């Protein structure tokens, strides 16, 4: 039996604006008077945390100022008073913030000067995420984000509480999500971090690389502020000199090798930080629980009745290592950049076999993941190669034109000639990867090369079709089929299928919707009204 919602009800994804009610406190006063549920505060250690983090932030500046101008200079006093003001503001904010869980609402009131009242109907709450960054961890605190799952289109479907003790946070989570308990041993475990995954896939993970780069930037910033940079940058300069004196091929080789090495190390560090301690489990009550992250932990809850399918995605570097990741197609969770920051990542880069198995157990059916796909029309192959050819030709042509007209070095367009074999290889891979089918209640398509995706979308979740033909597609009678849906990327496409095949797909997936608009070839057209 499939675990994915087959009823396809989308009545719960109405526009977001009414999910979170936010208004001035004075307006809500009357409504609040009737309810006796006691208000709760944020944890007192939050104050200490703010104090410490503000002071540490201000400290380097203060020291610098003191060294320059003496301890009692006007600047020191200015800096101290700014820090003091920030701390006072934090204290005021803390004293003004209260929250409570009433039988049918989650309510927050806050704000010092503009006092506001926020309420969310409890049945609209879709996720309770807990984050803990380094300073939270030091003070055993958790930042809690309560989401209504209405962040598909824009941010803002979330309320943050900064910060609660671990116990309070978990109590809150428990009371808001019912029996969906945060327990790292409860439920049926679907997957957990493998022992050697970080070594095998870490170096090939883009979201890890992004985090790693951010870390380096932060360290560089810190060094710069502490003014330690000048001395330690000497070796960099020496290196740069050595490279500029070396022959060109050696210099290129050195730079590329160094860049690859640094990238690999950074992405591995990022991978470990983001996905360390990963665990995915199925809880009673139809909820998937995901836990991941070493320094900043994330606990994500996905209701299975909102799950519309799974995307199996293999970025090229990962694919060469035999790895893949899984992304949820679900209403209410964004597919974010790198998909690591959005909550929709179901499985971090992991061995292909594990990914397939986990996809199968999430969907409750192995078939969508293993069913063979129908190949596309051979005209689709020609199109892959034609596009590769024209892309290379245009780039080379433009560079050659610039060389001819504006004196750009000839080396540019000569190097660009390498595009022909490279794009041809990509085209071959893209053709090889194209495939689609409708089977077992799922619409399945696979495409792409640099990132190969196979999405499996349950057919009742298809809430419309777009059949597109560009000028070039019209010439060779190919169609791009786009299924629109309320979850994940909002639409999923099957590129370049033959016209008749395109219609077979739509008919197989949504027979009732499509039948009235289809006619067998040969029948005369209806006269136009």
């Amino acid at each position, binding site marked *: 039996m499939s675990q994915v919602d087959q009823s396809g009800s989308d009545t719960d994804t109405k526009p977001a604006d009414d999910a979170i009610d936010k208004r001035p406190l004075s307006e809500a006063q009357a409504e609040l008077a009737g309810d006796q549920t006691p208000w709760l505060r944020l944890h007192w250690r939050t104050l200490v945390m703010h104090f410490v983090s503000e002071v540490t932030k201000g400290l380097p500046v203060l020291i610098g100022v003191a060294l320059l101008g003496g301890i009692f200079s006007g600047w020191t006093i200015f800096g101290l008073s700014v820090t003091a003001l920030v701390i006072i503001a934090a204290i005021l904010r803390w004293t003004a913030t209260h929250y409570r869980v009433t039988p049918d609402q989650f309510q927050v009131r806050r704000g010092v000067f503009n006092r506001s009242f926020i309420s969310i109907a409890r049945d609209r709450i879709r996720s309770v995420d807990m984050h803990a960054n380094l300073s939270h961890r030091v003070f055993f605190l958790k930042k809690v984000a309560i989401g209504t799952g209405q962040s598909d*289109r824009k941010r803002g479907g979330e309320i943050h509480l900064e910060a609660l003790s671990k116990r309070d946070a978990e109590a809150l989570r428990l009371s808001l999500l019912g029996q969906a308990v945060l327990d790292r041993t409860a439920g049926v475990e679907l997957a957990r971090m493998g022992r050697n995954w970080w070594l095998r896939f870490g170096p090939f993970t883009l979201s890890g690389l992004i985090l790693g780069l951010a870390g380096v930037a932060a360290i560089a910033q810190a060094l710069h502020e502490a003014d330690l940079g000048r001395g330690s940058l000497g070796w960099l300069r020496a290196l740069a000199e050595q490279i500029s004196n070396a022959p060109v091929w050696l210099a290129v080789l050195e730079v590329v090798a160094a860049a690859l090495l640094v990238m690999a190390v950074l992405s591995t560090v990022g991978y470990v930080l983001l996905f360390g301690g990963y665990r995915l489990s199925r809880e009673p009550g139809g909820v998937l629980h995901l836990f991941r992250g070493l320094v900043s932990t994330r606990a994500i809850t996905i209701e299975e009745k909102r799950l519309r399918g799974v995307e199996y995605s293999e970025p090229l570097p990962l694919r060469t290592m035999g790895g893949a990741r899984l992304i949820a197609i679900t209403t209410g969770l964004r597919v974010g950049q790198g998909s690591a920051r959005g909550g929709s990542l179901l499985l971090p880069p992991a061995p292909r076999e594990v990914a397939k198995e986990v996809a199968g157990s999430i969907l409750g059916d192995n078939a969508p993941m293993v069913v063979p796909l129908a190949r596309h029309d051979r005209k689709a192959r020609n199109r892959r190669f034609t596009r590769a050819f024209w892309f290379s030709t245009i780039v080379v042509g433009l560079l050659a034109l610039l060389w001819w007209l504006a004196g750009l070095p000839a080396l540019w367009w000569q190097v660009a000639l390498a595009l022909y074999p490279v794009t041809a290889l990509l085209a071959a891979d893209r053709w090889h990867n194209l495939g689609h089918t409708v089977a077992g209640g799922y619409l399945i398509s696979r495409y792409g090369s640099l990132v190969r995706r196979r999405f499996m979308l349950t057919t009742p979740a298809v809430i*419309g079709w777009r059949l597109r033909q560009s000028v070039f597609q019209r010439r060779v009678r190919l169609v791009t089929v786009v299924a629109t849906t309320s979850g994940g990327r909002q639409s999923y496409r099957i590129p370049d299928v033959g016209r008749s095949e395109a219609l*077979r797909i739509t008919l197989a997936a949504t027979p009732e919707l499509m039948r009235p608009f289809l006619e067998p070839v040969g029948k005369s057209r209806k006269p136009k009204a």
Partner: protein
Amino acid sequence: MDVPNPDIDEVGLLRLREPAHRVSRKAIRWWSARIAMVWTILLAGQLVWWLNTSSFGELHMWFFVGSVVLAVAEFLIEPRWRYRVHHWEVTEDAVYTKSGWLSQEWRIAPLSRVQTVDSHRGPFERMMGLATVAVTTASANGAIHIEGLDQEVAEPLVDRLTRAARAAREDAT
């Protein structure tokens, strides 16, 4: 091919039939006006650029001449071509449209999944008594626009769509 569904194997080769209705003939003028406006701005920009730079003079001129030819061709061809392509239909269960000219697109959405229905009229449309009816679904990429409808057609259509969507929704729950 091997899509395992008896539904389609018995159907054989298929064709999407044209949606039943054409848009208003006045839409040709509306599209023409839009194209004229865009090209006027582009050509004026080019002219200013050409007259204010001394180098590349001849190249600029040919570029400008080429643009004028393109503009005239598009102005003459696109609106009529669009008029032949653009079709729409609303059945008991679905909205179905075809649009485009060089590139074309068919869109289909079931009324049971429709969330909002509205009509809007830009300044040109207002001058010519036209309206665009927009239908959105729960998918951010699923909206359907029926452009260039006569005002007299659009108003009852919005009513009908709104009612149909509401009825379907109640049935569904």
